[in-house]
């Protein structure tokens, strides 16, 4: 009997099937997208019934139903908006062309990209994540070091800061959680670049804007580096780092809605200098030594609200001697510096309902430098207090309207003395700004950003209006063009304000156009720009000497100006070579300006026509399962830049010869780094090694002249080749390993 059971079953089901099939209607068709491309494995169903099927790999589908009359056919697929149509089922087969529209996402929606390199976890295009920064050879774990491998930034090695598209370092502002940071770099010695104060691991997102940036920010003629901090820390963990320059440690505690991190570090460059021979003409009388502590608090105030505090305190000391240029190098100049810095940044974000979002932030910084330079003693202190707020209104998909304002109070004091002379300078600046900005996605292909910023400076007693506009149009599935225009203002530098009270804002107008092709693994972009500088401060020397660093009295005006134009090219590829991520940047820059002491339109000393960077990273995956860990990372960075100009100007009474003009030799640097991931007693550990300028190429950044121009000294890196070794241990990093 059991033998026949299947047969009986089949017979019955056939009977059942055929009995049913009289009234069955076939519904067939194809699932395609709005470009006509096939959508495989979409789901097709009749609303309110089980009837339906999935489309095949070719997008075709075919099913039968016993439903009659008017029904709704629904086709759905992940990544697409659903398709619905009403049909009347009578006695004829039905054929349906289901056209599904792709959901708006980062790849099929245009982005406003002119002038900005955006990097975040969500956007995959051009990005520098914390790990990317620390694995960039030659960057020494410094944010700026990695940013300099992107096009637009000049290769300036003798001082800190980002020199973007013909702009000086003071034209780039660092912004953390929407608030500008007054002293983003540690205090340093002449001709030795300082590092950034902030660890790349503090930030989830980085936007490096080389121009045309949003109306939310001001006081930067060239560029902004916008850093956004992490939200809640993910887990409770401790970390310990040991490098050639010191130790650091920290602990992070995570509660449900709160996380608190406490970190401390002690740095002493003595061992580092012992391993890396220093410029023989310069002797450290006190190797840089510093202590730093920071506290980071994050509090989720509701499902949508978050409160953040970042605070840090640091102290540092250093001393160095070098040939005194004013004595033609016959005597030693003695330089020493003590620095204290406090920085606090607090912000609050909350969703207000009805598509409104609110941001409020405040920051405070206090920086004190005590410098002694031979017989000169300079004590300077700067306090910056800032408040900012804005509302964001969401207007449908991606579109927003922002409106807000900010105030800043900058109190700066500088007391200098030499022998029995002394000079005191004090500035008290109140700065206020209001801004509004629309970001409108007119279609998925076309987006427009229109912003306006208005600023007031108390010290200048002047207002300005800074309109900003960007347009982006998607020309293909992966390609787009953008245009940006913007006007940017900046209050003159502190030292310029000491001597004059009839100055006005310096300004710069940007015109940018860019074309880019992007997919998840490759990015190509080319950007051309033109910048027009206006009202740059000029300092006119007058021959009667008084106290001051150059021994001259000045008159100042805003009659300077200039231009910068160029082309930036960027290519990043994570796909072509297995386990390899590399990028190539090329920067072409043509710029002239008349500013500060320049007697005429000149190519500034920080600018060079051609810069090329190649960054190559190789990651060797340890385990081929789905959780891959790159056990060994190795990479190199090669940078080439054409020579930079140097000048020495007619400077009576000491120098009355013609202006000296020259160009340094080309710059070449090849740096490597490697890191190895392992575990020590069950704790996740990274060991890293970096060698900067491994080939030991002699680079020259410029020349300094003695006052009668009879002697000059080359500005060169502090050490020819540097080796850096360190390790980092994450203690108690738990991954699915709680004790049962």
């Amino acid at each position: 009997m059991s033998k026949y059971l299947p047969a009986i079953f089949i017979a019955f089901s056939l009977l059942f099937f055929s009995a049913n099939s009289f009234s069955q209607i076939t519904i067939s068709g194809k699932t395609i997208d709005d470009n006509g491309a096939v959508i495989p494995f979409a789901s097709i169903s009749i609303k309110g019934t089980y009837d339906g099927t999935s489309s095949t790999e070719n997008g075709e589908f075919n099913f039968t139903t016993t439903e009659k009359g008017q029904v709704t056919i629904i086709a759905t697929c992940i990544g697409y908006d659903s398709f619905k149509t009403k049909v009347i089922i009578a006695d004829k087969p039905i054929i349906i062309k289901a056209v599904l529209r792709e959901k708006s996402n980062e790849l099929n929606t245009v982005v406003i990209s002119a002038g900005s390199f955006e990097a975040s976890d969500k956007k995959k295009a051009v990005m520098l994540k914390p790990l990317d920064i620390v694995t960039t050879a030659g960057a020494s774990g410094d944010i700026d070091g990695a940013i300099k491998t992107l096009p637009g930034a000049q290769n300036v090695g003798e001082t800190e800061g980002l020199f973007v598209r013909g702009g000086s370092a003071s034209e780039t502002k660092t912004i953390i959680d929407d608030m500008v940071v007054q002293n983003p770099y540690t205090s340093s010695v002449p001709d030795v670049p300082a590092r950034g104060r902030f660890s790349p691991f503090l930030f989830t997102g980085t936007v490096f804007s080389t121009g045309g940036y949003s109306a939310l920010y001001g006081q930067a003629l060239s560029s902004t580096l916008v850093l956004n901090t992490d939200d809640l820390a993910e887990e409770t963990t401790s970390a310990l780092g040991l490098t050639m320059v010191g130790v650091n440690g920290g602990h992070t505690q995570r509660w449900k809605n709160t996380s608190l991190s406490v970190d401390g570090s002690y740095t002493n460059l003595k061992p580092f200098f012992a391993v890396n021979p220093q410029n023989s003409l310069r002797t450290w009388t006190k190797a840089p030594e510093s202590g730093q502590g920071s506290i980071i608090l994050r509090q989720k105030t509701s499902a949508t609200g978050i409160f953040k505090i970042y605070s840090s305190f640091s102290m540092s000391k250093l001393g160095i001697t070098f040939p005194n240029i004013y004595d033609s190098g016959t005597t030693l100049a003695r330089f020493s510096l003590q620095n204290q810095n406090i920085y606090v940044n607090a912000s609050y974000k909350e969703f207000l309902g009805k598509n409104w979002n609110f941001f409020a932030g405040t920051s405070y910084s206090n920086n004190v430098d005590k410098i002694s330079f031979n017989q000169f003693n300079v004590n300077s202190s700067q306090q910056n207090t800032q408040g900012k707020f804005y509302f964001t209104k969401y207007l449908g998909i991606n579109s927003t309207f922002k409106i807000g304002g900010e105030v800043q109070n900058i109190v700066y004091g500088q007391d200098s003395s030499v022998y029995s002379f002394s000079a005191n300078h004090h500035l008290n600046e109140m700065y206020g700004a209001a801004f509004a900005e629309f970001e409108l996605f007119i279609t998925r292909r076309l987006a427009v950003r229109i912003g306006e910023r208005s600023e007031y400076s108390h010290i200048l007693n002047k207002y300005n209006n800074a309109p900003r506009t960007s347009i982006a149009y998607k020309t293909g599935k992966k390609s787009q063009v953008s245009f940006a225009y913007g006007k940017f203002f900046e209050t003159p530098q502190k030292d310029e304000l000491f001597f004059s009270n009839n100055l006005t804002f310096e300004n710069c107008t940007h015109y940018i156009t860019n074309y880019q092709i992007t997919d998840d693994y490759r990015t190509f972009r080319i950007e051309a720009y033109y910048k027009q500088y206006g009202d740059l401060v000029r300092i006119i020397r007058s021959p009667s000497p008084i106290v001051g660093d150059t021994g001259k009295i000045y008159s100042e005006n805003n009659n300077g100006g200039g231009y910068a134009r160029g082309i930036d090219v960027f290519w990043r590829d994570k796909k072509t070579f297995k386990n390899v991520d590399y990028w190539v940047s090329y920067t072409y820059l043509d710029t002239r300006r008349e500013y500060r002491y320049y007697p005429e339109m000149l190519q500034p000393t920080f600018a060079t026509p051609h810069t090329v960077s190649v960054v190559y990273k190789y990651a060797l995956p340890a385990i081929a399962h789905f959780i891959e860990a790159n056990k060994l990372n190795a990479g190199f960075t090669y940078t080439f830049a054409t020579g930079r100009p140097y000048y020495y100007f007619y400077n009576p009474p000491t120098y009355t010869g013609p202006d000296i003009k020259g160009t340094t030799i080309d710059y070449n640097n090849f740096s490597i780094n490697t890191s190895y991931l392992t575990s020590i007693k069950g704790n996740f550990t990274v060991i890293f090694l970096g060698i900067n300028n491994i080939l030991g190429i002699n680079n020259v950044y410029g020349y300094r002249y003695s006052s009668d121009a009879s002697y000059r000294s080359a500005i060169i890196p502090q050490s020819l080749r540097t080796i850096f070794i360190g390790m980092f241990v994450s203690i108690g990093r738990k991954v699915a390993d709680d004790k049962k």
Partner: protein
Amino acid sequence: MKRIFLLIALTGISLQSFADGSQYLNAMKKAVSMTDTTASAAGLQSLSNHFQRIANVERTEWLPYYYAAYCIAGSAFVQKDKDKLDDYLDNAETLLNVADSLSPNNSEIYTVKAMIAQGRIAVSPMKRGRKFGTIANDFSKRAMELDSTNPRPYLLKGTGLFYTPSMFGGGKDKAKPVLEVAMSKYEFFKPASEIAPHWGLDRVKKMLVECDKK
């Protein structure tokens, strides 16, 4: 008169629900049995579509949503195109959230939540391993608390450890004891019904064999 109407109406409803109930059970039985044999990404996607069609009608049953999510989450593990994983997992999460609202504090649902979190890791292990590893672990822990007889959270936890590099506290040695617990729980586990979740035994066995390989 009112009473008669009410009676007729009630009979109508119960008849209706009886008819639907059997249709539901039959459809589910067929589909659930297919989950045991379907392994390809395309197959799992189609199967999830099928469960979603059932779910769209049976809006109060958690199982169709659960299986629809489970199939997509499963397809994420065999999906070659990693760029699309997040879309798939978002979809699975949406479906699972519906299941969760229909049947709160369900150990099986928390197990699939853990599975989705593990799927997220696959998109970018170096960048996400830490975050989603912890999330997956929290969900499987919750699933264990909700039903200590359920072997699947142990399977998930074991899977996580199995694929986590030893330098991050994972590895075969760490995975094996957890998988053995799962194995012992499978011996006593009886699914609540024919369509209740019962998957995972084969995987535990396979992984235990792998654990013993040097």
